[in-house]
């Protein structure tokens, strides 16, 4: 039972980081990055390939996962710099599809649809984390560090400038802020955190395949984000807690296993549509979606 709770805690930590980092881009800076899960996936693949194929130590692979996701985050912002609003969002979503297409087809590197199995449990400075409880503690530490970083960032003057970019990019530009550079920096920070979460995910599940990083996961992240509220980090934490626990309740109902997957997706998407209709600001949201 303790292992079961640890697993749920690990998932909550991972999705809190994914949704929190999406909040940094979406809620604070107004960059609706619908390709966020691609960066999560890039992190997972980087970490898995480095540790499985090249026997790189876990900590190095962990930070490399963030770095690779961050570099791609920069590339995507640079490519889409002319796009705004829904065009940027769908271009980012298209990037997600592109990433999955590459994961599926670059077989010599990613093993294609078979995925990468046997991703090792982390070993940090000689200490190997084997138990679910140990991993939960580690995931919690990572989540706490990421949220502390984001809290410091968003509470600072720099964070206010990011919010100014969201509310009035033209005005921020007129006041001498380099909006393009701010957007790039924000997306790099956001995707770096998503990459770290990807590494946590890969070493937790110990198996990754391309379809783990598809639209269904984006819906989970968006639902957490919007239920919790835009531009509120504590909202993302609360959202992750609620949204990860709800489908776990389905386990206690007598439903067959093959129904659980699509049912969970249906529940998530219905919650997402429902919250948009009823309370688009979510629980702790400070700003309206634009």
């Amino acid at each position, binding site marked *: 039972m303790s292992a079961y709770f640890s697993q749920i805690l690990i998932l909550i930590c991972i999705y809190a980081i994914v949704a929190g980092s999406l909040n940094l881009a979406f809620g604070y800076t107004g960059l609706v990055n619908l390709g966020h899960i691609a960066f999560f996936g890039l992190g997972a693949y980087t970490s898995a390939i480095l540790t499985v194929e090249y026997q790189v130590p876990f900590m190095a692979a962990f930070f490399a996962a963030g770095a690779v996701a961050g570099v791609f985050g920069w590339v995507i912002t640079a*490519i889409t710099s002319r796009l705004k609003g*829904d065009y940027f969002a769908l271009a980012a979503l298209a990037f997600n*599809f*592109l990433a999955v*297409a*590459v994961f599926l087809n670059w077989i010599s590197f990613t093993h294609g649809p078979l995925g990468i199995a046997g991703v090792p449990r982390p070993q940090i400075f000689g200490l190997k984390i084997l138990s679910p409880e140990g991993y939960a503690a580690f995931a919690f530490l990572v989540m706490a560090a990421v949220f502390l970083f984001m809290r410091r960032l968003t509470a600072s003057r720099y964070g206010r400038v990011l919010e100014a970019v969201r509310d009035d990019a033209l005005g921020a530009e007129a006041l001498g802020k380099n909006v393009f550079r701010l957007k790039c920096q924000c997306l790099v920070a956001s995707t770096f955190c998503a990459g770290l979460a990807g590494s946590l995910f890969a070493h937790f599940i110990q198996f990754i395949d391309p379809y783990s990083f598809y*639209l269904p996961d984006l*819906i989970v992240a968006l639902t957490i984000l919007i239920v919790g509220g835009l531009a509120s980090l504590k909202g993302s934490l609360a959202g992750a807690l609620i949204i990860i626990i709800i489908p776990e309740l389905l386990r206690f109902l007598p439903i067959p296993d093959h*129904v659980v997957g699509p049912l969970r997706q249906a529940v998530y*998407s219905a919650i997402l549509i429902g919250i948009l209709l009823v309370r688009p600001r979510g629980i702790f949201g400070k700003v309206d979606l634009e």
Partner: protein
Amino acid sequence: MEIASAAILPQLIVNGLIAGAMYSLTAAGFSLVYATNRFLNLAHGGIMMVGAYLVYTFFNLAGLNFYAASFLAVICTSLFGGFLFVSVYRPLRQKKAANMVMLIAAAGLAILLEALVTLIFGTDVKQLNFISVQEGWHIAGAIITPLQLVVMAVSAVLLVSFAVFMKYSSWGKLIRAVADNADLARTTGINPYAVQLWSFVIACAIASVAGILIGLERNIEPRMGLGFALVSFASTVVGGMGSLPGAILGSYLIGLAENVGQWILPSGYKEAIWLVMLFLFLLIRPSGIFGTEQGVRQTKL
């Protein structure tokens, strides 16, 4: 990597044209919804998928005549589209929801439709089996089956009649007026909400025909909706958002590119080819071939 011989090129071109014929039907509806409602309906492919499953239900499960089943499926899909519009999109718009909210709701709807269809029909692939695979005709080094010709003909006839409808009928004029400027249309006594609803329903009707054709030519599966929605987005970006000829041209260009691209790339990269094409257009000419700057400039309508 070995490069395939030039002999297969005509076949790849024919395959590209068939893909373009199917894409153009979903892209036309996607573009129509964007033109009148100003949001990117990511659930459009899902509605097409629902249409395909409805034909499967009426024809294969209920045993109706194929044409009656198709007719019923078109009617039901249109009604279903109207229901989605009235229950989700209209209330959001009435709350002055931004385009982004509409897009996220549409993404949620796309996944909801996929999950519900999976719950009802399962993940396995379905086939209509109305016209069995026949011996193809050899034309200029390519093989084309009668069914594929039917698909292309139906798509062409439907799109030409739709274009005529948009250009000459009074409804078409209303739609174009709202697409051009909804506020101005209101001042002349047009009810933009009704026009937005009707164009959404028309788009769903066309999407259901696309679903039937795709069901005849390929397999039906829950996952097909999202792919088609993104192809529609890519086609309309390439051709020009909100322009009907643009959507059709973009669809054929994408169909051709992804198929002719297999001449040098493995077939698994089909999707990657049009995604890269989409990025190139977004990077170099976001307004597309026929488009205005509208879609890029006005994000908060």
